[in-house]
């Protein structure tokens, strides 16, 4: 196993990912699976050091140096709302119905602090690549308003915040969300993260009509790409690599735009044909994914079929010559009663004949 401790700079984190790709490395986003093998998983997520231990345990279990945190995309919303007096229990269903005011500056506390402590624990081990995790500003915005789709569409038609209150709420939530995402990214970098997995699953064709985008990309660029570029600039300044994840259904134009982010690695969902996307993504960006792990619970998808899919994807990606790490389309969730079924399929794709 390679030691990321010997590769402390931004450049070498990217090199590590490329080296892993060249070695035919395979790994799932599997921390949730391993966490829920522990009977006290609920207590573990409340203690940074123990959570870090599970992240490291996951890396060991799947024989990877990539220490991937839980893909918990509720943390930023809870923190943002918490700073405005909204209780954590109310956070999941809380929505702004008017533009939120300035509020206080983002402060890393609660579950954000626990996640940072977990990264610190992983970094202390020295033989893993400590990674951070965060939600993208657009996806965070979609959690902050009750109906984000309609105002995004209206804004794409040219409706301004001054003309439509719902557009004003969306645009203010985007601004506010970016502040929190940046603060959390900086905190994770400070805790020792060498790469940040930025998840923007709502940037997809459910939220952006391909018909509207065919007439112009201004709204996608303004609502999705500009905030992502701001985060990328912050990560560059911090010496942290970007790993971009979007498991939503995408158009080619969206992939082309994400490809310009200069991410060290990009992870797409199983709706994408990665061997075709390889033409759209620069060679200095590793492609990751994208076996349909959301379907691993299904009895209709056999272990044998998963092995076959893994071998097929691996062969197709090798044929492209693009740096590639075989993995999951998203985080692999542990489902009560189906743990073994899911884990068997993860192990099948890790062991499938290349």
């Amino acid at each position, binding site marked *: 196993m390679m030691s990321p401790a010997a590769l402390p700079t931004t450049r070498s984190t990217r090199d590590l990912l490329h080296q892993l790709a060249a070695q035919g490395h395979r790994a799932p986003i599997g921390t949730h699976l391993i966490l829920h093998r522990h009977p006290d998983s609920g207590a573990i997520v409340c203690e940074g050091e123990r959570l870090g231990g599970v992240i490291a345990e996951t890396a060991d279990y799947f024989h990877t140096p990539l220490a991937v945190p839980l893909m918990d995309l509720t943390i930023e919303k809870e923190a943002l709302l918490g700073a405005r007096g909204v209780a954590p229990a109310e956070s999941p269903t809380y929505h702004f119905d008017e533009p939120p005011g300035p509020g206080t500056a983002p402060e890393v506390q609660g579950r954000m602090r626990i996640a940072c402590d977990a990264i610190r624990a992983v970094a202390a081990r020295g033989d893993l690549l400590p990674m951070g995790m965060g939600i993208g500003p657009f996806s965070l915005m979609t959690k902050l308003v009750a109906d984000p789709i309609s105002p995004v*569409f209206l804004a794409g038609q040219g409706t301004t915040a001054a003309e439509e209150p719902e557009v004003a709420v969306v645009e203010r939530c985007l601004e506010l969300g970016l502040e929190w995402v940046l603060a959390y990214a900086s905190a994770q970098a400070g805790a020792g993260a060498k790469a940040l997995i930025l998840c923007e699953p709502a940037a997809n064709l*459910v*939220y952006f*009509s391909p*018909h509207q985008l065919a007439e112009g990309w201004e709204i996608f660029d303004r609502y999705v790409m500009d905030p992502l570029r701001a985060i990328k600039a912050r990560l560059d300044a911090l010496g942290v690599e970007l790993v971009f994840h979007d498991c939503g259904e995408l158009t080619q134009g969206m992939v082309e735009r994400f490809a310009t982010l200069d991410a060290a690695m990009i992870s797409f969902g199983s709706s994408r044909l990665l061997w075709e996307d390889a033409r759209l993504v620069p060679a200095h960006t590793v492609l990751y994914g994208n076996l349909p792990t959301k*379907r691993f619970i*299904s*009895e209709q998808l056999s272990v044998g079929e998963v092995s076959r899919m893994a071998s097929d994807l691996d062969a197709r990606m090798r044929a492209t010559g693009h740096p590639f790490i075989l993995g999951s389309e998203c985080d692999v969730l*542990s489902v009560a009663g189906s743990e073994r079924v899911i884990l068997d399929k993860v192990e099948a794709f890790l062991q499938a004949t290349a």
Partner: protein
Amino acid sequence: MSELHPLSQAVMAGRRKEVPDLVQQCLDAGEDAKTIVETRLVPSMMAVGERFKRNEIFVPEMLIAARAMKEALRILEPLLVAAGVRPEHTAVIGTVEGDLHDIGKNLVAMMWKGANIAVVDLGVNVTAAKFAEAVGQHGAQLVGLSALLTTTMPAMRSTVQAIRATGRPVKIVIGGAPITREFAEEIGADGFAPDAGSAVDEAMAVLKAGS
């Protein structure tokens, strides 16, 4: 589209601000609220659903159309209530316990309303007991269960069991990203809708099968 009434056209195109005047024009022309719903709104939303199924439009266009329809119903529903007109079917819909995703559920609710089904939206993270209770409380003939996460699929199974335990002759249609028709059959649901555009056809099919 050119053969459709201007109100239907406005709804399909999501031109919400034009809708109140067009509804008023229909009323001024002597059409009653029930006729407007059945001949102007329902056909327009059915057409929207068909276009969605054929990938001619996408979720945002569908939502914008549904908003325009809602604008029309805002004017028409008081008239319908005053006239004692009720939709033929009532549905209860929600996202199952543990799941907070609502886009698919909202779309199906809008499409069912567009098909002139009375829809009681229970929201997200709805317990099996709450679904079962709502079926009785609202006299529903149809239930829609949504789940986006694989982790909440077991909740869908227990919800179907809880609804069946009430003994009411209700039809259950399920949907969501990880859901398949095989899973629907396995857990004893009556129907499966892979998308919101198909949800109306599926609802009508299961209701017809049970009548």
